């Protein structure tokens, strides 16, 4: 039985409860976890489709061999660094260091843009499109979905940077930072899985 | 048969194996419905102890007890029945997937919008032939079917003989049929495939082995049109040859059914019309009226041409 059941009205003292988005109490923080769960499912189904078609494909898979690592591997490291920067910024604001938060967010933002730029270059360098064959249909759709999530994440980091600069966050009220950082780390984690699936696994045969 | 597509009777080895299970689960289901609805009615209408005088008949029950026993017993019995059904299902499945002995004949069936192509294999290449919509098999032995997807997904179903298997583009499914005795068994497409899904039937005709062989030899032979249907043949080549094949003539189209021995079939248009001169004429003149949306175009032709083509077709026995 709950200790909270207050039986008599003369027990007037209620605990002092925090108000609003202190720490990770915000409803939005709970909400974004479920967004992550549903989006993670999306990528799982994309990988399922890729594997399903790969197993039944009458021919070599990937048809042109595994994709090159030259641009993709450094790009992966850049995305990881971006997450690190954002994580450092989030850690800083928990201690009230606003300037460091803004710096971490800006670095994360810029590295995110670099990631997208390099990936677009990598796409162009292939000379193929998603209509070229079944493999490229999956490759471009999957990495494209991921890139869309990165773009959304970049916009989020941009908004957080501006809000941080405007002094919206302090050591106690910073849940948008936690929420945005969580989303960004999720996007990074998804990339590591996709990178492994598309670039590493074909090389393991 | 008043309901040719029913599956509560069976005429083939495979359907024979399934039927007891079908009847079994049907009977279990009916019994469950009777028992549970009976319990429900009893629960609703049973007499309850008389209330103390002055008690509010709609009053809340004071400390109600019991009820969980219902749940445990009901769920317990249900679980036993369900597990038993699962075990029986696995056994039937194991029995049904492969024929009792090796099939000697293999027929490749391709589903098209909205007709059935059947290609009979043979070790002798010259004896391989294609027909459509009426599939003859020798009675009393298993026949292997390779199911090929032609355009969209269709499903190959002859309820009197077996359950259904889909024809799926990009893969080949295998099934087998065995008719116990000679007869005509209706089949129908059972996967929604577009406008004329409703009119995509076919017939499996089981013959005594000797009669089947006779039929097969006739189907292998190409057509030999005589001179008096030369005009009809010529009209046919012009109007119909782009889509239809008649072996032994230049007409070699692959879009529609092979018509080399069309008059040997009991129906036309995938089981939609009986194969009589009147219906045949009507079909050729107005395919869009009979099966709106099907791929046989409405062709404007003179009555003379129409008759000539029909006369030619009537020689293709």
């Amino acid at each position: 039985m709950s200790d909270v059941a207050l039986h008599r009205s003369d027990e007037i003292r209620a605990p002092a409860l925090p108000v609003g988005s202190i720490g990770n109490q915000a409803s939005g923080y709970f909400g974004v976890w479920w967004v992550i769960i549903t989006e993670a499912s999306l990528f799982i189904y994309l990988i399922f489709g890729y594997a399903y078609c790969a197993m039944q494909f009458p021919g070599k898979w990937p048809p042109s061999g595994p994709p090159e690592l030259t641009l993709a591997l450094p790009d992966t490291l850049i995305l990881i660094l971006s997450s690190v920067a954002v994580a450092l910024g989030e850690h800083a604001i928990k201690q009230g260091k606003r300037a460091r938060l803004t710096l971490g967010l800006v670095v994360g933002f810029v590295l995110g843009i670099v990631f997208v730029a390099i990936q677009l270059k990598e796409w162009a360098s292939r000379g193929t499109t998603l209509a070229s064959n079944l493999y490229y249909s999956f490759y471009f759709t999957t990495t494209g979905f991921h890139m869309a999530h990165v773009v959304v994440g970049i916009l989020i980091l941009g908004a957080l940077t501006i809000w941080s600069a405007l002094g919206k966050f302090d050591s106690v009220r910073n849940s948008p930072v936690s929420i945005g950082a969580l989303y960004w780390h999720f996007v990074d984690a998804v990339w590591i899985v996709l990178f492994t699936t598309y670039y590493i696994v074909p090389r393991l045969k | 048969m008043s309901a040719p597509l029913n599956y509560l009777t069976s005429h083939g080895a495979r359907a024979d194996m399934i039927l007891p299970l079908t009847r079994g689960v049907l009977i279990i289901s009916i019994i469950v419905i009777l028992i549970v609805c009976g319990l429900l009615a009893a629960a609703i209408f049973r007499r309850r102890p008389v209330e103390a005088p002055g008690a509010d008949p709609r009053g809340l029950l004071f400390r109600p007890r019991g009820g969980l026993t219902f749940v445990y017993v009901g769920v317990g019995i249900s679980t036993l029945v369900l597990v038993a059904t699962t075990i029986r299902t696995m056994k039937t499945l194991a029995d049904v997937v492969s024929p009792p002995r090796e099939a000697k004949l293999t027929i490749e069936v391709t589903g098209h919008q909205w007709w059935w192509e059947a290609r009979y294999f043979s070790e002798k290449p010259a004896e391989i032939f294609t027909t459509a919509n009426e599939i003859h098999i020798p009675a009393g032995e298993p026949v292997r079917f390779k199911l090929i997807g032609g355009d969209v997904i269709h499903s190959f179903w002859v309820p009197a003989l077996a359950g259904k298997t889909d024809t799926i583009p990009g893969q080949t499914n295998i099934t087998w049929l065995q008719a116990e005795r000679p007869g005509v068994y209706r089949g129908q497409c059972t996967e929604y495939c577009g406008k004329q899904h409703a009119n995509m039937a076919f017939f499996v005709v089981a013959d005594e082995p000797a009669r089947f062989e006779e039929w097969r030899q006739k189907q292998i032979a190409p057509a030999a049109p005589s001179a008096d249907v030369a005009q009809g043949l010529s009209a046919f080549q012009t109007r119909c040859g782009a889509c239809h094949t008649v072996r032994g003539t230049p007409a070699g189209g692959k879009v529609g059914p092979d018509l080399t021995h069309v008059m040997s079939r009991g129906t036309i248009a995938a089981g939609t019309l009986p194969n009589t001169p009147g219906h045949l004429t009507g079909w050729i003149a107005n395919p869009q009226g009979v099966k709106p949306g099907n791929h046989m175009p409405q062709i404007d032709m003179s009555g003379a041409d129409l008759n000539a083509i029909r006369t030619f077709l009537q020689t293709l026995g």
Partner: protein
Amino acid sequence: MARHTQLTQTTAIVTANAELAERLHKVWETEPGIKGFLGTVDHKEIGIRYIVTSFIFLLIGGVEALILRVQLAQPDLHVLSPEQYNQLFTMHGVSMIFLYAMPVLTGFSNYLWPLLLGARDTALPRVNALSYWLYLFSGLFIYASFSMGHAPNDGWFNYVPYANRQYNPGPNIDFYSLGMIFLGISTTVSSANFVVTAMRTRAAGMSINRIPILVWGTLTSSVANLLVIPAVSLAFFLLYLDRNYGTKFFQPQSGGQPLLWQHLFWIFAHPWVYAIVLPAMGMVSDGLPIFCRRPLVGYTLVALSTMATMAIGFGVWTHHMFATGMSDLALSFFSGVSIIIAVPSAVAVFAWIATIWTGRPVFTAAFHFFAGMIALFVIGGVSGFMTGSVPVDWQLTDTYFVVAHLHYVLIGINVFPVVGAIYMWFPKVTGKFLDERLGKLNFWLMFVGFNLAFFPMHISGLLGMPRRIYTYPHDVGWSAWNLITSIGAFLFAIGVLLLFHNIAVSLRRGKHAGANPWDGGTLEWAIPSPPPPYNFVVLPTVAGRHPLWEDRLDDAPGRSRLDTGLALDKGRQMLGTSVVDAEPAVILQMPFDSYAPFTLAVGTTIIFVGMLYRSWPGMAAGAIITGIALLLWLWPGRLREGSPEAANEPPFAEPDHV
């Protein structure tokens, strides 16, 4: 820390009083005029909108069905062309399964959850508002296809290759593909709101073993939706790409796999059919006890069976694909699981019967519907059990036997409970009773009509009648059964219309109902009918499952407190509690009415219209509007340096977060 105390609020426990009620009323009521209409975040208004909109789609879907039944009443009729028939049967399925069945339950959950949970709203009210607008706009989007004569025509299940551009060149399937992705966003955000609400905003003391079964039902469905909606959205998106941008996902000639569509679709659609019945079963589990004058038998078993049904339901999807040429191992596994899934359903059925048996039934109209659905559940359940056995399914599948099964489960376990719920909760929502005599007539017309229409389908199915055929010949033995079915369908329709008649009449002249007309035990019966905008004047503390029955049941030492509690009157405030034990954890600052959800929905609509016409400027414009709406929505408020009293200035006191 010193800064903390400025960010907390110490609130006395107060007794409910009229002055507090008046103050809360002003703070919580929806703004008048266009701002309130477009911007309301009140769960009650959103709930009503969902229910009304879903019933409009029910009626449209019903008319579509009646036209189909006219065409099928006799063999070889020409009331409809094949293409017309195909569009109608497709839209009938889409309307019922997507635009009625889930939204109506979302509507009931929206309206009832905060009342059942002792809260003033759901956890994310603007997300809630957004989900409604997205639903409305996506429904209109799909129906716009009719205006072009190009409604979806490949069935609700939309198999490829028939859905590919090559066989279906018009925009029909593009409307459906994009419309479904669009609708999926609505369902996703609404599900997220329900899950966070269930986790966070229950009354103090409402531990997880005290929450109503409706909450368990919707919670289970919401978690499931979040996991499986991406599968179908992805399938439709891949199809959209195939049809418009030349990808090869479902192109067999390029190695594409038609069965990939079926897997992705059914991985979603099977859990979906449980999602559209479990909340309704929850309403029966919560409503039946009131009319049996005792709590539900086996609460814990029923709650667990709700979750078990869904969990097992994730593992049965290929039973829709038994005829596709699967491996024997896969056939065996999925067949076994599909048969065993009947066990948790049996728990619910026997719990309900036990509740009636050991209770004292009160024969209200609602009771008729709740009891009647049990019979329909059993019939639908056993026909499902039959199709679970693979060799039998190879005969039954794609025949009218399955049509019978699906209508018994969907109408029996969704529609009948929903109508019962309307009879039960109408007094709470409107303060008036529905006419009880009309209600009983309503039940019998629907019950008899339904069985007359759908029971013969078992027979026409066993006689081999395939699904999705626009006509049939006269010599296959189906004619008589089809005629009976068509007659029954019209009788059933009259029964449904009687419900609307009853609602119309009762809204005008219904008998007055007080706060607790049925003597129910849960929290919604403790507040006035209709409820005030703030729901509870003071937030209740709960000590059991039936706070209003505690004194009389007297089976536990604790007592809930309803007339004294936290006021939380500094602006719009709600209590956030811990997940399992519901101990108070935080005071949540809730949003005021806002244009952002509506604007975001408009922006999303423009994106999808742009995608339909392959217009990059259109998509970009929609994206920009959506982005701006989202930015303004999420804009953080001022850091509150001063006292919490500064928050008491509607509408300027913006919440800290969503």
